[in-house]
């Protein structure tokens, strides 16, 4: 059996019809993963699916879960040496919802350590390699979740998105990545990097698959006070009104720009109402507001990893400072850098200068976004301003990786739903376009993406 190019929905339909059985489906993805993982490094933990009968919407299909989402009895490492042997005693709410609806776990995917990174290279288990060209990065931090779907090593996967971590790798591997509204999916069990920015997201081959899975995991969870119910009913067909911010497109490399503008003319021809504005007034503050808030939250979230409850055994002289230095050295360099930045930001005397101002900026950015999007269904901008780079290339210039986040952090600061889908091709790679809606308009964004997919047919392999 070859399921390459099949959508999750068509697989479920075939199982329903009896033309294939779920064991063979799980076997296909498992074998493909065994065969490719040495090369791609998408999985940190791969599990052989059992063949117990499971009922529910997912009919027993095994999916990939990012390794920062807690899975009961299954190692959840955050791609860190600090958690290399940590086995959670509980399931994240999103995971238990999937299990309740007939889902099983195929494996835990590689990622940037503690979700900190945009390339998928910052992992204690080695970089994830792009299935489109193994010498290139997949984008991060949900690198393994994207690579697994792109390389047919999983039918669909869960990731997490703090500043673009689902959309960036989706864009670099040519698949669909959806970041729901803040709170639309419970974060309970998602190992925190930056609580006020992040949400569990979904990566799939097609928007319809992503929408299907989103509906299974969305909703208010009593264990997450920040969660909420978003509208899950679909409106009838409508003519989408789309707003493009030119300066965001202009930030991108020429090859990205060209493909992106081409996608605009296509949707315009097909009846989308596309309008342009020149710029977003607070663009220059997006990255600084984002990194200030993210690092501050991260520094406190990660303070619990002190070597007492987590991490390899620390050999120490008995001196507390020596002990803590050794224990904290299990973190990789990117994580250490962000903890130090966050610790500095929250220090007496700097809190007001940096942290409080970043919070004020976030408020202003939200207000500005709500103002410009009024009257439109979604914003449309490129996902990544660049194409994938060679593995190792950005490590010499970390600012290059940080700058690549400039187009993805906006929806995390505003709590908006955002989706990246392939909208053009350059050589072996794809160009990702990003739709961003008002918080709560998740289904609307998904619906527009479906319509665009239909029009653009970027990955038309005729089998979905």
């Amino acid at each position: 059996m070859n399921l390459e190019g099949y959508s999750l929905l068509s697989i479920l339909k075939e199982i329903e019809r009896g033309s294939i059985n779920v064991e063979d489906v799980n076997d296909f993805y498992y074998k493909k993963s065994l065969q490719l993982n040495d090369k791609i490094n998408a999985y940190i933990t791969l599990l052989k699916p059992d063949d117990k009968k499971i009922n529910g919407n997912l009919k027993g299909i095994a999916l990939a879960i990012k390794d920062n989402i807690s899975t009961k009895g299954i190692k959840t490492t955050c791609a860190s040496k600090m958690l290399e042997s940590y086995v959670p005693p509980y399931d994240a709410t999103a995971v238990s919802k999937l299990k309740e609806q007939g889902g099983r776990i195929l494996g835990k995917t590689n990622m940037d350590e503690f979700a900190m990174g945009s390339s998928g290279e910052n992992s204690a288990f080695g970089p994830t390699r792009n299935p489109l060209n193994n010498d290139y990065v997949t984008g991060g931090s949900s690198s393994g979740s994207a690579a697994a779907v792109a390389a047919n090593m999983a039918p669909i996967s869960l990731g997490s998105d703090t500043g673009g971590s689902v959309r960036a790798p989706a864009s670099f591997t040519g698949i669909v990545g959806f970041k729901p509204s803040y709170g639309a999916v419970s974060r309970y069990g998602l190992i925190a990097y930056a609580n006020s920015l992040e949400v569990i997201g979904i990566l799939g081959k097609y928007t319809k698959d992503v929408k299907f899975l989103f509906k299974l995991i969305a909703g208010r969870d009593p264990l997450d006070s920040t969660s909420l119910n978003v509208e899950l009913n679909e409106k009838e067909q409508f003519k989408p009104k789309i707003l493009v911010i030119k300066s965001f497109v202009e930030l991108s490399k020429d090859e990205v720009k060209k493909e992106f503008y081409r996608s605009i003319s296509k949707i315009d021809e097909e009846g989308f109402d596309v309008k342009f504005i020149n710029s977003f007034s607070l663009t220059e503050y997006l990255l600084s507001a984002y990194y200030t808030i993210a690092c501050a939250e991260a520094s406190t979230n990660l303070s619990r990893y002190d070597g007492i409850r987590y991490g390899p055994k620390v050999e120490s002289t008995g001196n507390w400072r020596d002990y803590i230095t050794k224990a904290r050295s299990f973190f990789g360099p990117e994580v250490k850098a962000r903890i130090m930045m966050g610790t500095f930001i929250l220090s007496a005397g700097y809190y007001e200068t940096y942290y409080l101002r970043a919070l004020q900026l976030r408020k202003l950015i939200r207000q500005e976004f709500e103002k410009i999007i009024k009257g439109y269904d979604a914003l449309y901008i490129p996902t990544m301003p660049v194409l994938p780079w060679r593995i190792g290339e950005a490590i010499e210039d970390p600012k290059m990786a940080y700058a690549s986040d400039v187009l993805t952090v906006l929806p995390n600061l505003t709590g908006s739903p955002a989706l990246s889908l392939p909208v053009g091709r350059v050589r072996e790679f794809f160009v990702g376009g990003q739709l961003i809606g008002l918080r709560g308009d998740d289904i609307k964004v998904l619906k527009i993406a479906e319509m665009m997919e239909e029009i653009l047919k970027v990955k038309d392999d005729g089998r979905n």
Partner: protein
Amino acid sequence: MMEEIKVGLEVHVQLVTLKTKLFCSCSSDYRGKPPNVNICPVCTGLPGSMPTLNKRAVEEALKVVFMLNAQPYATSYFFRKTYFYPDLPKNFQITQYDKAGGYPLAHDGSLKLTNGKVVRIERIHLEEDPGRIYYEGSRATAKYSLIDYNRSGIALIEIVTAPDMSSAEEARDFVERLTTILSDVGINVRDYEGALRVDVNVSYAGGERVEVKNVTGAASVEKAVVYEVFRQKTMHEKGIKVVRETRAWDEKRRITIGSRGKEFEEEYRYMPEPDLPPVIITEALMQKVKDEIGGSQEERYNEIVNDGINEELAKKISSDKQLYSVYEKVKFYEPTLKQLAANVLANEISYLMKRYSVKSLPDDVSGLVEILQNYKSIPDHDTAVDYLKKWIEGEKVKVSLQVTSVNEIHDDVVKAVAENYDKIKNLEYTKKFEFLMGILIRKFGKENKKVLVEELTKVLSETP
């Protein structure tokens, strides 16, 4: 002025009336339990777990706020207070903060000491208790530091006073008065070991403030102040400068001990807790809490005395919230019964509560009203007590009174004497009386004993 003593207290009080912890649903009943039985991912700070606020904790804390005449903030926030310590599983404590844009639960309260002095209360806030470290033997000889997280996450309030006390006696009196006020709202800290812990701040003759941590109970607070004043006075006389520092209280030796290297300003890197929404105190919530507490003992006493009840009864009823609440309810049902209710509550009911270790009186007072309305017709004291006991035990009470006047039973008494004349004519008077009473009681019931005795006496005296 030069020898002025200033004492300010930070009193930590466990909200012992709560059944669960502050941020999870684990049981808060940890005393005498085996270690680490009341724990979950939240109170052990497992990666990915999230706190959710126990709403009852806010209500219980508000009771104390009102009893101390403090003002709640309409919106208050939780903060993370970061410090490394093994009993703190996240390495930050979730607490409330009054700087950095935060507000505590309440501000500007007061407590009147026995000598009439008013101590200002600066703020009251909610926070979580850490776990406990256990050293087998002593800290120096123990092979391991064992940690019990049963206490971790228990709801605490911290009450922070202004430095308004000027002697050890006043500090002791403050804690004693506070303990009484807490028990007025059911928070009986005396019944729970370690439920009230005090950080004592002492400064002598305008010198630096020294904080003595973790003093348990009013008597120890007094001793700690006495020792600290002695220590600082001695230093002062020797011309040694007192440094601002944190010291520990040694209960056994009754001295304070300096902690190492605390010369630097403490750095807690407070930041808002992103997983918890703000605490909103609505008018409706305040009213609900006020209805539940019904004021201080002083207020209750005045209320009863204003009803025209004598001081002795008023004192007895006002000292017990349950008695007072029943008194108020009866008064509401039937105002004319208030004097009788006061008598019965202060005497019979409080006797019964002690005698049978009754913890709580029924919410429904209709049975008691029934007893009081017919109190005069109840033949003797024992019968009345029987009825009251039934009511306390929650049984349905119906005072059966078939007879209201002597006229109704006159014929029956005469008939009983006539029908049994042959049997009784030769009996002694007392035997005769007992025999006839037996017949009459069987017919009319014990509750009519009094009338029957009167009538039978009369009839027999007229009988040859």
